[in-house]
């Protein structure tokens, strides 16, 4: 088991939040993981990201999605207004 599971989860949340903000135009004040039955803006953005990157669209942070988010990439956003 990881030495500090809570810290690892926090790192993943940070990664997801920043990835979606940087590349999928997620509003910066969006609370990342408030659990809602129908999903929220974060889940919608995860779906959008999964669709764009050709992953299975689940809205969940499965291992394929996390693996893709950790790959090196171009810094230009994938969607949204370019500034």
């Amino acid at each position, binding site marked *: 088991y990881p030495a500090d599971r809570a810290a690892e989860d926090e790192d993943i949340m940070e990664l997801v939040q920043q990835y979606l903000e940087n590349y999928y135009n997620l509003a910066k004040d969006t609370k990342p993981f408030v659990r809602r039955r129908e999903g929220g803006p974060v889940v919608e953005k995860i779906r959008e990201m999964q669709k764009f990157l050709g992953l299975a669209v689940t809205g969940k942070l499965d291992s394929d999605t996390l693996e893709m988010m950790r790959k090196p990439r*171009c810094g230009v956003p994938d969607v949204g207004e370019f500034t």
Partner: protein
Amino acid sequence: TFPGIPKWRKTHLTYRIMNYTLDLPREAVDSAIEKALNVWKEVTPLTFSRTDEGEADIKISFAVRDHGDFSPFDGPGNVLGHAYPPGPGIYGDAHFDDDELWTSDTSGTNLFLVAAHELGHSLGLFHSADPRALMYPVYNTLTDLARFRLSQDDVDGIQSLYGAPPVSPDEPMAPTESVPSGPETPDACDPALSFDAISTLRGEILFFKDRHFWRKSFRTLEPGFFLISSFWPSLPSGLDAAYEETSKDIVFIFKGDQFWAIRGTEVQAGYPKGIHTLGFPETVGKIDAAMFDKEKKKTFFFVGDKYWRFDEKRQSMEPGFPKQIAEDFPGVDPKVDAAFEAFGFYYFFSGSSQLEFDPNARQVTHALKSRSWLNC
């Protein structure tokens, strides 16, 4: 494309390499950038020239962390670079994160691959959702550099902005506000359709015309239609001749006094070579058609109303040639555009006509339209 579809309103662009990474020799950086620009040059009317001082349309720099554009880099990994769409000032510029280990191969982060992607942004392309595309945002560590090619999606994208490349360097396409239409796309059903060159390739037949080719597989009814540059970005368009040396798994491509060797999608190192290295006299400036007979292991080269025969085993031109085409191939037109061998027959193409020739009976067995292979 980016929102608002920004693009350059001219076809000749300048670039400047502002500084260098210490990871690579300067010549390697220069070469990677030039090669990356060539990827786009091959499929558009765009041309590029380098400047070492003053303003340039595309300024290329290496930087770490904060570098003055409000988009700081993030240390090793993750973001490799970014670039700005066409426009003045910072627009069009490409920045590379110098916290990456830049390499000429794939042991680190390959500069050519990232530069080709970023320069795609500099020319006006946004990210593609096609994982095969160069403009897909995630760096593909598995890319085989020798087999690198633009995807059809990349080609379609950039040509939607700038059109296709001119047919020949003698006929440059004038800069224009609207999207240039480029040379006409050939129509498989055009009764006047002729071919530049034809070759087999691993059991398929490739019919070359201008900058496109049809790929006829016997596994599928409909032939595929592709840009030559989408498979072999460094090959020219408007080929003269082509043939497959099946025992070597190599297709030789001829244009003017040069020829290239390709294996699958990989253009072999050391090419192009001059056609005179094959044994042609200096008076021969180009080949009209070429055909490999896999039984005889001989290649026939057709030039005007004559032909030469090349012994592939001995790698030399056979003595006693050239001979008159009409003498040894009775009934075949003296001017051959393209030829190939299949099923024991020779197929000769001249304009919109095609002749099937039985080499054993030494006679023409069928007269067909050139387009007959395309299921039109």
